[in-house]
Every structure is written in C-alpha cells, then in structure tokens.
C-alpha cells in the first residue's frame, strides 16, 4: 500500500477536508491518487536493446455536476497544488448545484494478490530468460532471422477519497511477456507473435519451461505465414477459432454497449435495449471478477466493486456497461466499469473481460458445413466506428476453407463487418470457449487499459474478407 501523503505537507484528513469542501455542491466526484511503477526490458537483434524503469505518482481531482465534468490533475501532491485544483474545479462549476450521492457498495472480494511483479523476479533472471528465448529460437531453425522478446511489468496502487470521507484502495499487479520472431525462407519474410500475461507474477506464466511454449507458438505462426497465399476478396462464410478472435466481440459489440455512447445516442445500439441483436444462443457478458485475468479489477477506478455484467442474453440486449456519471444520467447503477488509464485521465465506461459463452457445436461441424470461406485463428488489432457500427480486424493466422476442408494458409487480410447486424449472422456457436492468453489493450479517447476477451469457435454466415484475390 502506498502512503500518498508521506513526505508531503498534507495529511489524509486535510485532503479529505479539501475534497468535502470542493464537492459540497456537486453531484459526484473524488480525489483519485495513484502510484505507478513499471518496467520494460527488451531483447532485440541478439542484444538487450533497452531496460527502462518508470515511476509516476499523482492525483486527479474530479467534480461532476449534471453532465459536466471538471478535472484537474498534477504530479505534485501538496496542499498548494490541491488548493489550486480545487479553485479550478469550483470555477468551472460555479453556477451549478447538485445532490446525487449514490453510495459505493462494499466488497470483501479480491481478484488478485498485492504482489509487485517487478521486484519478485530478479533483474538478472529476467535478462537470462530473454537470452534463453533468443538462443532457443535461433537454434530451432536456420530460417530464424530476427527475435524480439520483452518483459512488461507493473504495480499500481490507487486510493480514492470521496466527499463523505470514504476511502477506497486497491493494489494491482500486471505482467506481460511477449515473443516475436521473423522467419526468412526463399527471400520471403513473415512474422509470428505470441504473448502471455495477467495479474500475477512473471513466474506463474513462465515456470517449468512454459516460456518455450510461447516461443513455439510464435515460431509456428510465422512458419504458417511463410506458406501463405494471397487472401480472397469479397463476402463469404467465416469460421472464427476460440479465444483471442473474440476481439471481434470487443470491437463489433462491446464498444457500442458502453454507457457514454448510448447516453449520447451516438452508438448504433442506443435504441436497441430489450431487442434481438444477435442470433438465439448467443450470450455475451463483461466480467471484471475473473481471478488474475488481465481485464479484472477488484474495484473500478471510481471505487465501485466490479461484477459480471450480462450484455446480451440469448440474443437479447440486456445491459450497457456503466460508470457512475452515465449510470446516474440514464437512471441506473454503475456496473463497476468506470476506468481510466492513469491519474492524468478522466473516467470512462470501459470493458473488462468480454466473453461470448459456449454453445453446443463442435468446430469440426462448423468447418465441414462451409463450401467456400475462411477459418481465422488469430488476429492482430481491430477498430470500430461506433456511430456507423462498421468494424474491422486483421487476421494474423487464417486458412481457406474449400468444400468443408481446411486448405492453404492465407496472407493477413482485414475483415470488415457491421456491428449491429454481425451477431445475427452467427449461425453456430461452438462448445469450446477459451480465454485469450492475457495480452489485450483497449484504446478509447486516447486512453489504453488492459482488457481480456473470450469466445468459443463461431460460424458467421457472411463477412467481407479484404484480400487481393478476386
């Protein structure tokens, strides 16, 4: 636990007094304090390319009245700085008056331990492991042309002081280990990338030689891509594999179900509550309570305990994801989805671990039902236009399907679809739901936050595949 007021000219009770005084006429708000330590160690081109340690601490002071948010942040935790922020907030909201004070529910649950992953593995052993990765991959095959591997670890302590003197705290570990390999054969180069991570220590993911599995997977993907042919262009059937391809759900549906876009009526989903938005058998949840997952949080960045929010149940739209501001304005309760990248950022409703639950079909049944289409196993990134509902994602491992059989691998292509209609095109839901390996970061309004996704294999009747072969 960080003591934010140690070595400052202010103590907790004085800070509480400033918060209470500043927010007395407001609907909501808080003082959010954060201490963030992170490290990055990168091996590239046979060398330790960089080792960086970051240390950041500061506060974000927020006052909310009606729909208006006033925010002031600084990395100087001092009486003078807080006073200045307080004046700034009061100045913005001078003519406003508010009453809302929805109490924050209490929780005893914890979804991760308070460990500092940076300190609980020695620097030496991290360097050794990166070198082992490099040697292991380079000895695997003469086609290995380039190896990049890196550790990213962080520990974040937060404290939220509310106007009723309620103080909420959380300590969040997070790690990610990533391997990227470039292979070269007959003048052709291709990449394979794989990573693992979550809210535990590095060794929980890498012990007993399991780091080799990460290397093997990156190597396998690059090898598949070396054999890839140009991808087809046009509308066709698409089978998505389980796990990480659920970024389709994240882009196509998830963002459109965030409270702010629906309150502002800029989401293509804003008038679809209670309606059929997906095929029967499709259930999608956003769960912040999975143990040690990348997208999990014990409490969100407003202090609300997270929950498992049902977004779509058997095809029917049930809930949006809410922070306190949007919940209040829409007459509902926060779902514990209020998140921010850091003290420098305002809270927004965001996803945590977004999952489509299992149905009853096997992947084989799906593939054998397709005459002509593609089988997409892994993706790079995705993006969505909330308003038109159009979304894309890029295949990093995909195959042709011909007459019910998996054929040649195809080059990376973008797939494009329409959010509100895509889930109605889901004709079969698989029985093999899988979580992603713990590598996702979601961007919104310039803020990146760690998230997870999960899904079973699914068959989509019709999507546009952006290849070059007509």
């Amino acid at each position, binding site marked *: 636990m960080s003591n934010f007021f140690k070595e400052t000219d202010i103590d907790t009770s004085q800070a509480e007094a400033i918060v209470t005084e500043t927010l007395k006429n407001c609907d909501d708000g808080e003082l959010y304090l954060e201490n963030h330590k992170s490290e990055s160690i990168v091996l590239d081109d046979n060398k330790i390319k960089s080792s*960086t340690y970051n240390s950041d601490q500061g506060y974000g002071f927020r006052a909310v009245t009606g729909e208006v948010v006033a925010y002031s942040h600084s990395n100087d935790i001092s009486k003078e700085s807080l006073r200045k922020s307080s004046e700034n907030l009061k100045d913005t909201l001078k003519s406003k008056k508010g009453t809302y004070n929805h109490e924050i529910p209490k929780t005893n649950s914890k979804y991760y331990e308070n460990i500092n992953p940076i300190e609980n593995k020695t620097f030496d052993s991290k360097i050794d492991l990166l070198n082992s990765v490099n040697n292991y991959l380079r000895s695997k095959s003469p086609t290995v042309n*380039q190896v990049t591997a890196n550790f990213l670890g962080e520990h974040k302590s937060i404290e939220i002081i509310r106007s009723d003197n309620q103080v909420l705290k959380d300590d969040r570990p997070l790690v990610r280990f990533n391997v990227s390999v470039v292979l070269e054969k007959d003048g052709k180069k291709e990449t394979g990338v794989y990573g693992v991570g979550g809210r535990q220590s590095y060794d929980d993911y890498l012990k007993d030689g399991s780091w080799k599995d990460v290397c093997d997977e990156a190597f396998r993907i690059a090898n598949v891509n070396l054999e890839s042919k140009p991808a087809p*262009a046009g509308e066709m059937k698409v089978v998505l594999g389980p796990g990480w391809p659920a970024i389709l759900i994240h882009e196509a549906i998830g963002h459109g179900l965030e409270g702010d876009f629906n309150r502002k009526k*800029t989401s293509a989903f804003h008038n679809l509550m209670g309606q059929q938005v997906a095929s029967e058998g499709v259930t999608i949840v956003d769960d912040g309570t999975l143990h040690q997952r990348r997208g999990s949080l014990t409490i969100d960045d407003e202090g609300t305990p997270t929950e498992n929010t049902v977004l779509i149940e058997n095809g029917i739209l049930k809930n949006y994801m809410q922070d306190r501001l949007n919940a209040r304005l829409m007459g509902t309760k926060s779902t514990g989805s209020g998140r921010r990248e850091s003290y420098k950022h305002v809270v927004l409703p965001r996803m945590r671990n977004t999952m489509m639950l299992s149905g009853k079909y096997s992947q084989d049944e799906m593939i054998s039902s397709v005459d002509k289409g593609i089988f997409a196993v892994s993706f790079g990134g995705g993006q969505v236009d909330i308003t038109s509902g159009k979304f894309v994602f890029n295949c990093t491992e995909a195959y042709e399907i011909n007459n019910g059989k998996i054929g040649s691998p195809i*080059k990376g292509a973008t797939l494009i679809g329409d959010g509100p209609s895509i889930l109605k095109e889901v004709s079969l839901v698989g029985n093999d739901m899988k979580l992603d390996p713990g590598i996702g970061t979601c961007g919104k309004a310039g803020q990146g936050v760690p998230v997870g996704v999960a899904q079973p294999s699914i068959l989509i009747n019709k999507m*546009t595949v952006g290849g070059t072969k007509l």
Partner: protein
Amino acid sequence: MIRDQEFLKDIASYCIENSKKLGATDVGVKVIHSVSENVSFRNKKLDESNRADSFAVNLTTYIEKKKSSINSSDLSKSNLEKLIERCIDATKITPSDENNSLPDKDLMSKEIRDLNLYDETHYPNDKKIEFLKKVEETASTDEKIVNTEAGFTENKNNFILANSNGFLGGYKTSNFSSSCVAVSRINGAMERDYEFGSTRFLQDMMKPEEIGKIAANKAIKKLGPKKIKSEKIGVIFDKRISKGILSTLASAISASAIARGTSFLKDQINSEVFPNSINIIDDPKIEKGLGSQNFDSEGVETNSLKLVENGILKNYLIDTYYGKKLNLKSNGRSGGTTNLYFENGTLSFKDLLNSEKKFLYITETIGHGGNIITGDYSVGASGFMVEDGELTYPVSEITIAGNFKEMFKNITLANDLEMKYSTNAPTLLINQMTVAGK
C-alpha cells in the same frame, strides 16, 4: 504557468552530476514541463474542462557500453536520488552492446534558431467556450445533424535536453487545436465525420464557423452509403488520409527497420521506389511548422533531407544507435520525421478525378492493416464513387488491399498540397487496388 529554462536546467544538471558521481561514464537526460488546458462541448453545452500540469524526467545512464533508463514525473531531489541509484544499479548488470553511445560531438546542434514555435498568448477558458459555441452552432444548423461535439485544447511546453558531453539545449513550444465531430442521421442510420485544426499560434487557427461547417457537411454527405461489388479499381486518397502513405514510408526507411532487416524497402537505397516525378522532403526548419525542431531527441542537428528524389530512395531516417549498426552517421532523425511532405504533383484535383471514367474516392480508413515487413496492405475503408469526375454516392463497409511496393510505383499526385499537419500529402491516386465488398 510554464516553468523557465533555468528551473529545468537545474534538474538536468543535478541528474548528470549525480549519475556521474555514482559511476556513469555517460549520461543523457531530458526534463519536460507541460501545461495543457482543454474544454469540450457537446450539443451546445459545456461537457468537460480539464487542466493538466505535468513534469517528466527521462534519464539514460551508460557505463562504458552498458545502458539503462528511468522515467519519472516526480522532480523532487529525494525521489531523483533514489531513481538515479536504481538506474545505475540496473546499468551495471545490463549486458554490453558495442553500439550504445551518446551521439558524436561534432553532429550536435550548435545554435538554436527561433523557428517561431511558441505563442505565449493564453486563451482563457471563457474564450474557448465562446469559440466552441460558434463551432457547434454552425455544425448543427442542418436538421440531419443529431449530435455535435467540439473541443479546444491549448498546450504549452518547455524542455531541456542535455548530455554529459556538454550538450544542453531546449526551448518552448505551443500548440492550439480545435475539433468538431458531427453525427448525421437519416432513416435511423447514423454517420459521423469531423474537422480538425492545429496551429502553433492562436491567430492562425481556423475560424470556428469553418470547423463546424466542414464537419457537418462531411457527415451529411456520408449518409445512405452503399456497399459496392468487389473489383480492381483506381483508388483516390483524400488529403486527410493520403499522408498515411508517407507515414508508412517513414516506418519502412527508419534505420531500425533497415538494420533489423524487417522492412520491405531493405536494400532499396538508390533504387527507384516511386515514379520518377515524385520528390519527398523532410524539412525540420519550417517557421511555425507542427513538426519543426532544432535538433532531434538526442540533440543531433536536423536539416532538410530529400528522402526521395525523382522517385529514387536517397536517405534512411538515422539515429545514433542504428546508424552505428549500418555504418552510417546520424542524420538527426532519432524520434522520426519532422515536417514530411510530397512535393506537389502537376494535375489539379479536378483533372485527377477526370483522368479515368470511374474511381473509388476514399475519405477514411479503419484498422491497422499495413505490414512493414512484407509490404502487404489491407484496411477497412469508406468514401465515395467517382463517375465522370463527380462524386456520385457514398460507399462503406469495404476494404482496399494491395502491396506497398506496387502501390508506391503507381502513385499520381494532385497539386493541392496544404501544410495542415506535420506530415502532409496532396490528394493522390493509386492505380489498380483490390476492393472487397459484396
């Protein structure tokens, strides 16, 4: 407001001296202070005001050829002391790399020219609010516009970059930016578009009415899009996105991609990469330029470079580390390009649209479908069909795909270059790309 040079110099010197005391043989440090004030509006009402006051220290210490870095936002000497110690400890146990070093002394920037990058004018929040009211009023005059958002941001920055070879330099910069997003609706379906202005000086900012009007018009024009059939067709890139071609080029000719062998342009120096009518320039010394700088992120002097001359690739973007790997001297591009642009083509915008019977005109791409290693490119897109030189109807939910190597060779430029961003390109045509639709 913004802290002065003396304050930042004091921190920089403290970091260098203390690192050396603890055993560093070389040190590089950057100290930054920035203040940013932002106001945003939604549907003609105040939505958010945000004030940010932030410090940062980025320190890299070397012990011979070993190197490690720390970053922190806490400038207190007690904190810096702890972090410097940590940095030195990490440096000691990081393996050596013969290419680690500060830049050559003779390449360092010697004098700082005033490039007119700082406007001390403060635009108070109530002025910003007046400005945004005008933006939104103009944006929402048409009843098809159902939602508007507008924002105004003012940034002031000051920094010092220093190293243990005696280099020390820095200066203030400012930035004013304003944007408007408009959402249009017809028959229950919505489209969104925007306009954006960014300048070093407040007086150069677009008129609020202009920003609102352009955003609204663009959003209305996009209503009722069709999905077209898959085909091979010439694709025209609107100026808002044509600059993306230059960003791709910049990634592909960065010394890191070349040295690591992960660029589709490896070994293409002095070869014809574009048609011979094409020249590409990176000029850091443009007055008031959004990408202008006196020196790069290592303190190396930056001068104007012709990256591509008559279609031939002439220069990579080189920093100290990867320069050593390639046996080339840094050309002041640690941190990338500065003001990067295509020299104008010869065709007018109208003539370009009329150069064939039918084109696809793209105003927006979505997704990150460019692969720098293979040159393969595939992204989502939306825009308009062009028939006989006229924009006939909006198009969406399609992809465009190709390979950069061939795309580069098939570029035709219009003559409508504007310096609106730090990377700028005129409207451009790429012959024969694959469009996937129905």
